[in-house]
C-alpha cells in the first residue's frame, strides 16, 4: 500500500502568512492614500501661491505688467468664475503630470482677482500680463493668463505697441498668415479666423477704432470696452461674461463709496455734479445681463469722466 506524503504546514505559518498579507495590503493602501493626500496638499498650496504671485503683477499705476512663470513639469491650471454674491469670485486649481498621467487637481483656491484665461491652461510655461480697467474710475486690474502661443494678424499699431512693451514671448505679430513663425491660436483684426476682432469705435472722441468693439470666438460674440479687448481674446467666453458681471458688481460697490465721498467733500465746499449720473450708471451696471450692453454703459462712463475732469483739481472725485 502506498502512503501519500503531504507537506504539513503548521497553523502558525498559515496564520503568519495571512496576517502578513493583510498588513502588507493595508500598508500599500495607506501609502497610496498618503501619496494622494500629499499630492492634493502640494497642488492646493501651489494654487494658493499662484494666486499670491498674481498680486505683484497687478500694474498699480503702470499701463501694464507682464510675467512668465516656468514650471519644471507639464502643469494644468484650472479656472472657474461665479458672479453670485456681492463681488462674485474666481477659483484657481492646479495639477501636474506625474508618471505619464495627470494628477487629480488640488483644492480650489478662492480669488478676488479678475483672471481672464481658458477654463484650463496647460503647459510648462504660463504667460501673464495685466491691464488696468477704468470705467470711468479704476475698477480693478485685469489679469490675462495663457499657456499657448498666439499669432496676431494685422493688429493695429496701438495694440502692437502696447503688447510689445509688455515683452510677452508667446505673442507674435504678422501681416502674413502663412508666416512660419505664426503658430498657435490666430487672432485676426478686421478679418475672420479662429478669433476675430472688430473695432466699432468711429466717433471723433475715439483714440482708436478698437476702443470698443466685439470679438468672435467659438461661435460666440463678446463685446468689449478698452482693456477688456485682451480679456476677450485670452479667456473662455464663460469666464469673460462672468468676470464682466463681476466687474460691474465691483463698479456698483465703488459707486456707493464715491457717492458717500461726494457727501464728505461737499462739506468742504467741493460741489460735485457727478452724483446723478453715477447713480444712473450704478443702476444700469447692476442690471447688466451680458457684455452686449457694455457699450451703453461706456457712454455713461464717458459722460461722468467729462464732468469729473471739469472739476477743480483738489475736488476731483477720482
Amino acid at each position: 500500500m502506498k502512503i501519500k506524503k503531504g507537506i504539513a504546514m503548521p497553523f502558525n505559518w498559515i496564520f503568519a502568512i495571512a496576517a502578513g498579507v493583510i498588513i502588507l495590503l493595508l500598508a500599500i493602501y495607506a501609502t497610496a492614500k498618503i501619496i494622494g493626500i500629499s499630492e492634493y496638499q502640494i497642488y492646493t498650496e501651489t494654487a494658493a501661491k499662484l494666486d499670491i504671485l498674481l498680486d505683484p503683477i497687478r500694474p498699480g499705476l503702470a499701463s501694464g505688467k507682464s510675467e512668465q512663470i516656468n514650471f519644471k513639469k507639464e502643469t494644468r491650471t484650472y479656472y472657474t468664475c461665479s458672479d453670485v454674491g456681492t463681488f462674485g469670485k474666481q477659483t484657481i486649481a492646479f495639477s501636474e503630470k506625474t508618471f505619464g498621467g495627470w494628477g487629480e487637481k488640488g483644492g480650489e483656491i478662492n480669488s478676488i482677482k479678475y483672471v481672464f484665461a481658458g477654463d484650463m491652461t496647460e503647459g510648462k510655461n504660463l504667460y501673464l500680463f495685466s491691464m488696468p480697467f477704468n470705467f470711468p474710475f479704476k475698477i480693478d486690474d485685469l489679469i490675462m493668463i495663457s499657456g499657448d502661443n498666439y499669432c496676431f494678424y494685422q493688429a493695429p499699431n496701438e495694440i502692437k505697441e502696447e503688447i510689445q512693451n509688455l515683452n510677452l514671448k508667446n505673442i507674435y505679430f504678422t501681416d502674413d498668415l502663412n508666416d512660419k513663425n505664426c503658430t498657435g491660436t490666430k487672432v485676426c483684426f478686421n478679418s475672420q479666423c479662429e478669433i476675430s476682432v472688430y473695432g466699432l469705435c468711429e466717433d471723433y472722441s475715439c483714440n482708436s477704432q478698437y476702443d470698443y468693439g466685439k470679438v468672435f470666438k467659438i461661435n460666440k460674440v463678446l463685446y468689449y470696452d478698452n482693456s477688456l479687448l485682451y480679456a476677450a481674446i485670452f479667456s473662455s467666453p464663460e469666464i469673460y461674461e462672468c468676470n464682466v458681471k463681476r466687474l460691474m458688481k465691483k463698479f456698483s460697490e465703488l459707486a456707493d463709496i464715491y457717492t458717500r465721498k461726494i457727501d464728505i467733500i461737499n462739506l468742504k465746499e467741493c460741489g460735485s455734479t457727478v452724483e446723478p449720473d453715477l447713480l444712473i450708471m450704478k443702476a444700469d451696471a447692476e442690471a447688466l445681463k451680458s457684455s452686449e450692453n457694455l457699450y451703453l454703459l461706456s457712454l455713461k462712463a464717458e459722460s461722468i469722466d467729462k464732468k469729473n475732469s471739469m472739476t477743480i483739481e483738489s475736488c476731483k472725485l477720482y
Partner: protein
Amino acid sequence: MKSKKSQLKIQAGKNQRFLVPRFSKNGQLKIQEMAFMLVAIILFFVLVGLFAATIVYKNLKESATNIEEERTLSAISNLAGTAEFVCTGNRPNCIDEDKLMSLIGKKSYESYWPFTSLRIVKFSGLSENETEWIKCNIQNYPDCDVLEVYDKNQHKNEIGSFVALCRVEFEQNPYEKCEIGMLLAGSDRK
C-alpha cells in the same frame, strides 16, 4: 463477520476520545501568543499612524499660516493702489482718506480682502499707544487717530506698511492735505 464500518461505529461508542474534544495546551498557548502579537502589531501601526498624522497636521497648519501671511503681505503691498484706496490721479502709495471714510461700515468688504482686520493709523496716532487711539467716525472726522475699516476680532498677526494719507481740507479754498499714515492688516493666526 462484522464489516469494518460497523466495527468503527462500535469503537466510536466505546472510545471517549470521540465524545469529549481534547485540546493541546501547547496549541492553545500558540494561538494566544499569535493573538497578542496581532494586537501588538495593530497597536504599533495605530501609534505610528497617529504620530505621522500629528506631524502632517502640524506641518499643514504651519504651511497654512505661512501662506496666509504671505497672502496678507502680498495683498497689503498692493492695497494702496486698489480702487477702494487710491488717491485722485492714481498716485503711487497714496490713500484717499475721504474715500476711506466712506468705506467704513461697508459690511460687504469684510469678507472681500484676505485680512482679518484692516485699519489705517493717522499721523496723530503714530506717536500714541493703541489704547489712546480715537476711532474715526462721521462726527469726529478728521480729528481722530485711526480709521478702522473692519476688525473681525480674531487672533491675528498684524502687518504694517507706511502710506501717504490725503484728504480735502478747506481754508478759503478747498485744497488737498497729505500726511503720513500706517496701513495695518491682520492675518489669521491658525
